[in-house]
């Protein structure tokens, strides 16, 4: 008998724990050969904003050792067009749909959460509190107060599972995670990109048009793992781990650290079939290790005393 790949994030049931990180995958109405979106544990949209916005000027991406810097700046068609034109196309996706939303005020968070919650296609909301590439430069999830304010604003307007995506660019991730819990989040997504920079020595200018960007890829995996581990110890919320996953072993590490599911991001740019391969790999890993269920691995790396799942 094969092991159970199913997992849960609060009330959100997932067939398996593998999903794309917001902004690293998209759905254009069809699959490419060799992979199928309906085999993912969930689909996660690129963050949407209330009003349309163009995103940042080039250069938006730069490669760094074992990583990638980006300053995309959330190009967005705005909520109205998203709901009328983009979301209907997701009908064919055939797995849980998580919509990532980026709000600039608690008022916007309320409007967006309310309208997304009216959509039967939306299974959960990820509230992006951690984009490092927006003009005013501030990150909501660097402030306990703003985190509570933004999460609770969305919470008052949605019954859907609410996932708070946090930033690693903080002194204490646990403080912010507790703030998200206090605001009413159902789950944490750890982590968004790490702030970084690269300079072209020929032009003597920053490589990115936005100067600073967010670092993703294998370079940040140890940072992400440590934050998942800490929050599993200290905060009573399920965790979606993200940051530098490129292969099955990385996923198992995140599960052991305390993640109930994971998001796979930058590696999809390198090899679009990676999530598919990881799902197959995890199935056989559970079988060969004699593990009955993904759940059985979650948090195994911890000593007694962690709060969630005990």
């Amino acid at each position, binding site marked *: 008998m094969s092991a159970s790949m199913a997992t849960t994030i609060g009330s959100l049931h997932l067939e398996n724990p593998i999903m794309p990180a917001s*902004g*690293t*995958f*998209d759905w*254009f*109405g*069809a*699959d*490419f*050969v*060799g992979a*199928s979106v309906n085999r993912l544990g969930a689909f996660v949209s*690129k963050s949407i904003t209330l009003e349309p916005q*163009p*995103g*940042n*000027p*080039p*250069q*938006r*991406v*730069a*490669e760094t*050792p*074992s*990583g*990638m810097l*980006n300053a*995309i700046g959330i*190009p967005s068609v705005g909520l109205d067009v998203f709901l009328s034109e983009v979301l209907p196309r997701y009908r*064919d996706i055939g797995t849980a749909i998580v919509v990532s939303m980026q709000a600039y005020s608690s008022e916007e968070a309320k409007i967006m959460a309310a309208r997304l919650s009216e959509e039967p296609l939306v299974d959960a909301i990820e509230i992006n509190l951690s984009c490092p590439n927006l003009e005013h430069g501030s990150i909501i999830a660097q402030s306990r107060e703003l985190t509570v304010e933004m999460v609770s604003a969305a919470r008052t307007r949605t019954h859907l599972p609410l996932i708070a995506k946090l930033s690693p660019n903080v002194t204490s991730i646990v403080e912010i995670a507790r703030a998200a819990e206090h605001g009413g989040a159902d789950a944490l997504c750890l982590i968004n990109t790490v702030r970084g920079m690269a300079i072209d020595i020929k032009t003597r200018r920053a490589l990115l048009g936005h100067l600073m960007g967010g670092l993703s*890829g*294998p370079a940040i995996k140890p940072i992400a793992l440590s934050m998942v581990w800490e929050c599993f110890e200290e905060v009573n919320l399920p965790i979606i781990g993200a940051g530098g996953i490129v292969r099955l072993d990385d996923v198992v590490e995140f599960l052991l650290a305390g993640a109930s599911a994971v998001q796979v991001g*930058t590696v*999809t*740019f*390198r*090899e*679009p*079939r990676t999530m598919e391969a990881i799902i197959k790999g995890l199935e056989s890993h559970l079988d060969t290790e004699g593990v009955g269920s993904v759940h059985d691995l979650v948090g195994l790396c911890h000593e007694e005393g962690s709060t969630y799942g005990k």
Partner: protein
Amino acid sequence: MVALGWQVEDGLVLENSLVGSDIGRMLVRAPEITSTARPGQFLMIRCWEGEPLLPRAMAPLSYDTVSGNVEIFYRIMGPGTEAMAHASAGAIAHLTGPLGQPISDRFENQTVALVGRGVGITPLLPLAKHIVATGGGVVSYLSARTSSYLFGSDEFRALGPVKSRADDEGFADQMVTSLLEETCETRRVDAAYVCGSRRLIQHATSIGDRFGFPTYVFLEEKMGCGIGYCKGCPIRLRDRDEYRLVCTDGPLFSAKEVALA
């Protein structure tokens, strides 16, 4: 369920060698992608394991549907193209493609100018073949630092007149667009397709404006994925504060549509 136009294929490196100090030529067997590629399209290639992390965008000089081979010329600029230069025959080339918008227009009775420099010449050859196959004529304006970098010039010559300028033949101070200008004085040109530096593009575009024909440009931008996922390759529209993506909306754009400054 319908499939997207592109796919991932593990191709096989058949040949790979330097054709000059910093330009390599690679022949890759990839019959699936080759069979569906159209003029104007490109692919992402990663013929190494480990670093660097991301694949590289390449517009092949030719897609041979009989042999299933693609021929790629690449300029060694950084870690990705250095890794390409180190690939041996027999290596696996992870390819994603064909990517970008195909050129499917027909060119009956049109005279089309093709303007390219260096590795920018490569996307013009599949287009030149398509133009001639659909009843049009091409005049090719090719330039490069050395005459050995005038890629495919024999094949261009088989399709129509070729006017070329190589810096090492004493033409370093003359842009190949001056030859286009001379042509325009004496005969009708219906459109120009350009791939090269922004300076070359601007020269060609201003000639097009003066003689009243549209200019289309193959653009390059740093890409994360090439498949529209990362939104990393923007080109700004000329008339409004919006971007298009070079990978999925391009790589060919009307020069009128995009801000090239």
